[in-house]
């Protein structure tokens, strides 16, 4: 039962929609800026602190996106610029030094400090790269200080993680010249998912596996020409480029979303590391079967249903592929804030031919299209969800696709359930 479900190597037919026209729109974009990714990055990177150099808006955004204030002193903060910081950049730098000094004195547990650029800091051209170099020197070796931009003018939501990881890449240790091939998994995964993948790779016989980001700065994996990179997230354009500049090579694979995606993703690594076919099947068949079973439970509720995905995190295309192929849903439109054709190549091949893809956004026009299409389910951000529900349209919050573990075999059923729940709920409600 399981062996025949294992996927063949990359399809050679011209199915999929890799070459189809994409609707490109420029208008109001109802998306978060890159600062938002601090919300999960700071949980993953346990000795890192994220200091946004920005405005009250930046602080308010992160606070609103983080939702609950569980932590008395979170490992993120905003240095809110005030009138006098705008007047003179020298003063702004002095102020920044003062704020960072106070912060580091207060948090002796911090090993890595990110100065995170924002829209206002970018517009006034506050050079956070130089500031980070200056501060890095003065706090070495106890604290490393790096910078990246999470500004809305340069990054959309998850691209903030891309920028943070790209800033880390130059500081990854160099793999020895004669190193054996190693695997690097890039993109934040929930710890539980990371552990599952570690076990699978170990069972496949791939011994040297690193994860970026690491929980601690000291555990940053090494990188070099023998490094093979698997992307665990779809939004890592700059990180992938930076890793390639360090000599690493990128493996082409769909993302580990759903049973099929996970198997193909693992297969890409297995092929690169010459894992015998039989061993691959032995290692993956149980997980694959469990995932298929768990997904199948939700198929009846979702098959044939029409789904419309608004752009949010760039995970939309992999998720649409999963919904179409494993749950039999019909994709009305799949929006993505940015379409990286190379990274998405394997995904686009798997999408049903003719799937409508949109890149960028004009939210009002997209809402018009959505209402006209009257889908059974809309995947969208929190700003749109309740208004659409009030219009009678079932919605799924797209942010859950980032905040909850969805990757890997053991999460495939949970992922399917995320989409089944809003529909099941509407069936139960009689008010």
């Amino acid at each position: 039962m399981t062996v025949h479900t294992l996927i063949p190597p990359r399809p050679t037919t011209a199915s999929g929609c890799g070459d189809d026209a994409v609707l490109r729109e420029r208008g109001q974009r109802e998306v978060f800026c890159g600062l938002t990714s601090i919300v999960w990055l700071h949980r993953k990177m346990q000795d890192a602190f994220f200091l946004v150099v920005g405005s009250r808006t930046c602080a308010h955004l992160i606070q609103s996106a983080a939702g609950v204030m569980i932590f008395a002193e979170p490992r993120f903060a905003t240095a809110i610029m005030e009138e006098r910081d705008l007047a003179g950049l020298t003063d702004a730098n002095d102020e920044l030094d003062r704020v960072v000094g106070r912060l580091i004195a207060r948090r002796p547990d911090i090993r890595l400090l990110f100065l995170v650029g924002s829209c206002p800091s970018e517009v006034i051209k506050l050079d956070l790269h130089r500031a980070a170099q200056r501060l890095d020197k003065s706090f070495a070796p106890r604290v490393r200080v790096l910078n990246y931009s999470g500004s809305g003018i340069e990054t959309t939501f998850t691209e903030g993680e891309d920028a943070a990881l790209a800033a880390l890449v130059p500081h990854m240790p160099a793999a020895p010249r004669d190193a054996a091939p190693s695997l690097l998994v890039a993109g934040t995964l929930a710890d539980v998912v990371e552990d599952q993948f570690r076990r699978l790779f170990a069972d496949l016989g791939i011994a040297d596996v690193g994860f970026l980001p690491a929980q601690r700065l000291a555990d940053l994996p090494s990188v070099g020409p023998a490094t093979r990179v698997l992307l665990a997230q779809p939004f890592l354009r700059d990180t992938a480029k930076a890793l390639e500049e360090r000599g690493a090579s990128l493996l082409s694979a769909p993302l580990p979303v759903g049973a099929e995606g996970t198997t193909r993703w693992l297969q890409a690594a297995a092929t690169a590391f010459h894992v015998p076919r039989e061993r691959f099947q032995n290692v993956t068949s149980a997980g694959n079967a469990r995932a298929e079973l768990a997904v199948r439970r939700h198929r009846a509720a979702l098959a044939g249903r029409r789904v419309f995905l608004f752009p949010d995190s760039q995970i939309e295309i992999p998720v649409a592929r999963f919904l179409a192929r494993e749950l039999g849903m019909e994709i009305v439109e799949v929006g993505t804030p940015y379409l990286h054709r190379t990274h998405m190549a394997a995904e686009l091949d798997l999408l049903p031919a003719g799937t409508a893809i949109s890149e960028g956004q004009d939210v009002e026009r997209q809402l018009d299209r959505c209402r006209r299409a009257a889908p059974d389910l809309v995947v969208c951000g929190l700003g749109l969800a309740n208004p659409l529900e009030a219009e009678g349209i079932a919605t799924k919050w797209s942010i859950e696709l980032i905040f909850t573990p969805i990757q890997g075999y053991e999460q495939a059923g949970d992922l399917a359930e995320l989409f089944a729940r809003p529909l099941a709920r509407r069936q139960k409600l009689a008010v």
Partner: protein
Amino acid sequence: MQLTLWTYEGPPHVGAMRIATAMEGLHYVLHAPQGDTYADLLFTMIERRDRRPPVTYTTFQARDLGGDTAGLFQDACRAAYERFKPEAMIVGASCTAELIQDDPGGLATTLGLPIPVIALELPAYQKKENWGASETLYRLVRGLARPRSADHVRGPRPSCNILGPTALGFRHRDDLLEIQRLLETIGVAVNVVAPLGARPSDIARLGDADFNVVLYPEIADAAARYLEKAFGQPAVRTVPIGVGATRDFIAEVTRVAGIAPLTAEAGSRLPWYSRSVDSTYLTGKRVFVFGDGPHAVAAARVATTELAFDLVGIGTYSREFAREVRAVAAAHGIEALITDDYLDVEEQIAALRPELILGTQMERHIAKRLGIPCAVISSPVHVQDFPARHSPQMGFEGANVLFDTWVHPLMMGLEEHLLHMFRDDFEFNDRSGSHLGKAPAPVASAAAAVEPAPSVVPTTTRWDEGAERELRKIPFFVRGKARRNTERFALERGIATITLDTLYDAKAHFGR
């Protein structure tokens, strides 16, 4: 630069959004970078609004900055007008757009739209949310309100405008209903409520009323002052939170409206509940108050004069109301905490060890961490502050709500006596206890383990066996406090080992 972990207020353009979202037929075009649309979810998620805020954002990106951002803004204005056909438009910039100096007001005016366009200048690097709301309402009133028209027919009753309730306001929806009922009882007609539910055409006829009721001074005082000056409309400024303040409010309204004084206290239960014997145990409970200026001032009055609590601390994040809050503090012989630094507030609460915190959602988190009962009295708001049931803070029903929500977190009176009486009973142990006497939530303690809050009192003293045994006899819900107080007492006196005597010396020292 100000190092900020958590903020009490958003930027001023969020204040403007609270006005626009409260109203009908008004559209806000905001020059803002990609990402600033996050503010929509404050309204759709926290307040569960069924419509998107009436806001169009330019959401410019870096690639637009080299080009024509001014053109982008004008396109957005035109498209918003065409799509939404508003009666009036407000235009402005968020913090980043302020830096690129495109002059949204000027740009929108040159479009020649056939509706009033009101430009907002909200300096994002100096001002905050409430100021932004106040300024926006003031600009709208200034731009749209007309004096009483010549053909205006006066009704049989005096009339007023109710000014201040907004979207995302703390209990504004319910307060408004309560005050409308109260004014109806008194015999005062309501001409316009603004901004909540008002159209620009309603703002235009504010001048028809005899006077204004300023329900939320942090939002409506500037507009009311303008109306006073321009149209000679007096303003009622008593904030009717609590029984006493509601009585004062009625007295002020009747005086300004020129009608006979009256009492209208049907359904007011707080006075009797507070005098009933079960409430005896509330006497002298040590309370800490923090919130926006008007809510903090009102809470202090209710807490001390209507529940007989002791005010041990008071503060506000609204610098605009520092004077009023300091005056209340001085009357209670304490010093006010005027700050928007969350860590300062936490530090003061930890030092004062109140028995009840009346604060915002931020203090609720502090309270959870410190294991102190808490009730929320003010913005910033949380989804819980928009309950399904009617739950006002204002008027007599509001006072009833205050009694319930402030008293329930505390141990019930008779129950407390029983717990003391049976504290040595074999069935009274740490596992059983009151339904109310909860240890800090596990989430909070787990979080504290990951992110230790700064310890206020370092423990370098030890307990001897007898004292430790005695401590265990103290009911679990006050044991933590007894332990902390005793350790503080010992530390301050350089006592290395806490004995039975130290424990009771400390009890005598801290006891009232």
